[in-house]
């Protein structure tokens, strides 16, 4: 049993060094000059603008990718068609594109010298170095989250229940709302919180298209970068601590959702036996 003790100790040491310490450092650095300095940063108008913009972008991105995720999962999991595995690969594609490249791609399409650059300029519409570009870059990097959570779940559940509902005369919308949605509820919530966390925290893609205009196109992670580069370490860690809190809440919800899913599965197997 000695090996057991050594392996557990090694694992805990690794978790402490690589996960616990970085997390603790965020809060310690943020509170280095006390609660007064902490709240002073939070009251700064630039901080408010950054928090507001992050929330605004997320409020657009998550519903869009939610709609996409449900549509994609319905098409892929409940039907058979040619090229299905290719479609799944396409949905996963944004995960294998570097965030910086994702941002660059939109500069090529909407930037001053890009495909629609001239037309946008003539019509006085700003996408790059403005909020619309940041929204669409965030849509790109968070696109797979909800879909890839739902697809395996709905594939595992099959479509027997839905078919039964249809035979009994339910409309398509009724089937989704009354049969499918209750079954995928927890997976859906999990996908949404992952998408939400990434959308609030996205850095590389947004950095390329934002133009770093203070109070206007700075999200929370970009504000962290600016403050840090100006040697305002405490202020940078204060904003960072809000994002770290969000990460902790995300992990908490995730653990809860998995516990619920596990319980639901247990109930199902008990019911069957």
């Amino acid at each position, binding site marked *: 049993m000695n090996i057991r003790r050594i392996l557990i100790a090694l694992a805990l040491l690794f978790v402490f060094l690589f996960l616990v310490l970085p997390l603790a450092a965020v809060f310690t650095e943020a509170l280095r000059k006390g609660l007064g300095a902490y709240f002073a940063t939070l009251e700064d108008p630039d901080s408010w603008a950054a928090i507001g913009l992050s929330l605004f972008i997320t409020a657009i991105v998550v519903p869009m990718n939610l709609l996409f995720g449900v549509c994609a999962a*319905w*098409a892929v999991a409940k039907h058979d068609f040619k090229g299905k595995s290719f479609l799944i690969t396409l949905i996963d594609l944004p995960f*294998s594109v570097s965030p910086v490249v994702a941002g660059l*791609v939109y500069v090529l399409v909407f930037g001053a010298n890009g495909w629609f650059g001239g037309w946008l300029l003539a019509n006085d519409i700003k996408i790059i170095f403005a909020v619309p570009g940041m929204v669409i870059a965030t849509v790109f990097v968070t696109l797979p989250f909800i879909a890839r959570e739902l697809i395996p779940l709905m594939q595992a559940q099959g479509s027997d229940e839905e078919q039964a509902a249809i035979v009994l005369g339910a409309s398509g919308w009724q089937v989704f709302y009354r049969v499918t949605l209750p079954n995928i509820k927890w997976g859906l919530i999990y996908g949404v919180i992952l998408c939400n*966390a990434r959308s609030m925290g996205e*850095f590389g893609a947004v950095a390329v298209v934002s133009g770093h205009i203070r109070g206007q196109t700075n999200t929370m992670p970009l504000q962290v*970068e600016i403050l840090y580069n100006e040697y305002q370490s405490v202020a940078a860690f204060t904003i960072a601590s809000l994002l770290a809190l969000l990460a902790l809440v995300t*992990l908490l919800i995730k653990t809860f959702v998995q516990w619920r899913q596990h319980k639901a599965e247990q109930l199902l197997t008990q019911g069957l036996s």
Partner: protein
Amino acid sequence: MPHLKRLKQQRVMPGFGLTLGLTMLYLSLVVLIPLSALFFKTFTLSADEFWLAVSSPRVMASYRLTFGAAFIAAFFNLFTGLLLAWVLVRYEFPGKKLVDALVDLPFALPTAVAGISLTALLAGNGWIGAYLQAWDIQVAFTPAGIVIALIFIGIPFVVRTVQPVLEEAEKELEEAATCLGATPWQAFAKVILPTITPALLTGFAMAFARAIGEYGSVIFIAGNMPMVSEITSLIIIGKLEQYDIAGATAVAVVMLIGSFILLMVINLLQAWQRKRAGMKS
């Protein structure tokens, strides 16, 4: 009989056209058309211009650093990931639930936050950096710092691919091996390791792919010295800031092709894993 066949082909489930249409439209607008812009822009360059942009010594040094550091970090995570997955599946200990939840922290914590936090820890006056300085080791603002950041980013991948396979692996086989006189190490190397190898490699490849494209956590800790600690993503940003959009695009295409090759490798590995799982049952 032909009648039956036709019946079978008819779709019972509604909404196929609508959902598939919306999915394709959304994917085209957000992903495919913008990504194709990258290749169209590259074709405006002559072959010489392209080659010059993607093979200057500074860019070549950044490939070596990016791919090298990503490989080392993913290799490290191969072992720690297996260790964590093993401990979480096979042993009971206080705080196990907490450790299991914390493993996903790098997925949930914004990369910029991870970057400044690791830098603060490893800088000369940081909690860990101070000890290292006593031994005359510098990690922050060197390539070693980049590896540390990439290890952090890659922690969940191997754990989360190996964990479910290890849970499914039949303990009976291992027990049988032990009964037949195998040492615990032999039972592990000959019975368990072959079962989890595809999952291990999948996790490794995913961590590697993620590390190649990583930007936020790296730039704070790297020091960003040209030729020494400048990653490829930063080269792209640098070229963009100098309005060298064509040059930035050329380097991005090289990175993208690298990512696509890895994506294909991951897909093949996953197919192998499914085959393994299928053979067992």
